[in-house]
């Protein structure tokens, strides 16, 4: 459902005892209702801080939430109109350590999605637990969409074969920008490279970004893939199915 943005007034004047949550329009756990002005301020503030300190992942997340008001509904509609995407919206799978059977995935053959995903997590020392839950999205279905986008990000790395260093992240951002249209991705893609050396910039500009863009444009929506049901599928075959060109 949709919420009216809150104006920070308390409700529940019927004198109910016990705790009344300050989230009077709270749509999902962790939701903080915000007015348009607050969203604008958050967007501006988080953009500045994220640029200044790219390790403030929470600010990148907030930027995504506050600027996604056009892109998120588009993504949701794309998902709704696709059989697998629709399935995901219904079941709302989450990629977390508690839902993943790491042992089984590790046991899968090399080259399969599951095995490569686990290898990616180990090589880069990341964990699926580190994704921030959404706070400022005022629609709980869209909150799930952005959550799914965040959790699928590591799988993007796996599919594109990109590591989690600055260069790899920028390439993935270009791909995601084309795929999702989220302003946060576009900003990340545009401003991420400022922190790279010239040599890396060259590689980025001549090979990686054009490839990422071409793949992004060619591929069908990556959120429409029920990854949890495809762990056994070879990465190559999934790439082909989606329309991602082989990495350079």
């Amino acid at each position, binding site marked *: 459902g949709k919420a009216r943005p809150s104006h920070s007034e308390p409700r529940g004047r019927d004198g109910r005892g016990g705790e009344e949550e300050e989230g009077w329009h709270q749509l999902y756990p962790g939701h903080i209702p915000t*007015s348009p*002005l607050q969203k604008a301020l958050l967007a501006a503030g*988080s953009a500045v801080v994220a640029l200044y300190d790219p390790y403030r992942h929470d600010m990148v997340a907030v930027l995504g939430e506050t600027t996604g008001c056009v892109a998120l509904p588009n993504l949701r509609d794309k998902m709704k109109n696709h059989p697998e995407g629709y399935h995901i919206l219904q079941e709302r799978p989450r990629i977390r350590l508690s839902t993943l059977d790491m042992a089984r995935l590790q046991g899968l053959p090399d080259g399969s999605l599951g095995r490569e995903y686990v290898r990616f997590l180990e090589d880069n020392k990341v964990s699926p637990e580190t994704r921030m839950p959404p706070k400022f999205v005022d629609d709980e279905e869209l909150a799930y969409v952005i959550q799914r986008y965040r959790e699928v990000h590591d799988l993007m790395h796996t599919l594109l074969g990109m590591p989690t260093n600055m260069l790899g992240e920028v390439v993935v951002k270009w791909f995601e920008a084309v795929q999702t249209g989220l302003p946060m991705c576009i900003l990340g893609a545009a401003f991420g490279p400022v922190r790279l050396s010239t040599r890396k910039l060259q590689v980025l500009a001549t090979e990686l970004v054009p490839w990422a863009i071409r793949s992004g444009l060619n591929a069908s929506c990556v959120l429409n893939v029920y990854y949890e049901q495809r762990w056994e599928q070879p990465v190559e075959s999934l790439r082909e199915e989606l329309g991602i060109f082989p990495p350079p």
Partner: protein
Amino acid sequence: VRLWWCRCWALLSRPAWRLRARRGLAAGPEMHFGFQTVTEEERREKIYQVFESVAKKYDVMNDSMTLGIHRVWKDILMHKMNPSPGTLLLDVAGGTGDIAFRFINYVRSVRERQLQRKLKHHQNLSWQEIFESYQKDKFNSLGDSQVVVCDINREMLKVGKQKAQHLGYSEGLSWVLGNAEELPFDNDKFDVYTIAFGIRNVTRIDLALQEAYRVLKPGGRFLCLEFSHVSNPLLSRLYDLYSFQVIPVLGEVIAGDWKSYQYLVESIRRFPPQEELKAMIEDVGFFKVDYENLNFGIVAIHSGFKL
């Protein structure tokens, strides 16, 4: 567009909650935590958690939210106190030490002036008299003044101690973990009691005031610096707008903590206004109770004497 803006502004700063604003004294087990309703114990717990999480960014946030003006407020408090060397100060909810450090600086400079005057006076003394004065005077830069910083929250004290070390404050300063409602000190001990931006977070303000009275010496002074109520309607609207729209955003962007700063602005609205606080202070036994508004009532300093 103007109509929309006016409506927006009206909605955003509508003080409709004031109709049901609950005051600091708990009537029964239900209390306020910002705009929520909780039990006394829950409130203490929640407030502890708020300050635990904001402790490290407390000073940065204060500067950002008040654009540095909080420093001026604290300076004014110190000037009002006008402590002389030898004063024993208890700073309750003193957390990160802002008042304590200012006290030390103030007393040090007064002491310096005292010593300078003495030196000037000494120019005309006989050798014998000068010799005798060296025996008496401990060249104590603080003149035996001392400040005890008391706070209920370990994290805040930790930050305060680190700051003291970093800034080079060691003499005349001690840190005590304690609850304003039940102070770990004997009766009639201190010359001055201060509580700056802390009494708002105390669950039973009446108890804190009683304790303040108890630990002060006869002749001692109570000083409270706290956010208060703006009576000017236009300013009040602007202040509300800023508080509710900007401050939580600052909290999220700078400290990654929206909720604590939402609590902050709500707790300010819940706190008794100037006259009511004055009455509460008088009820406990203080005399010559008065208050001074700073910045049109955004902040007020309440003062009282134990006679």
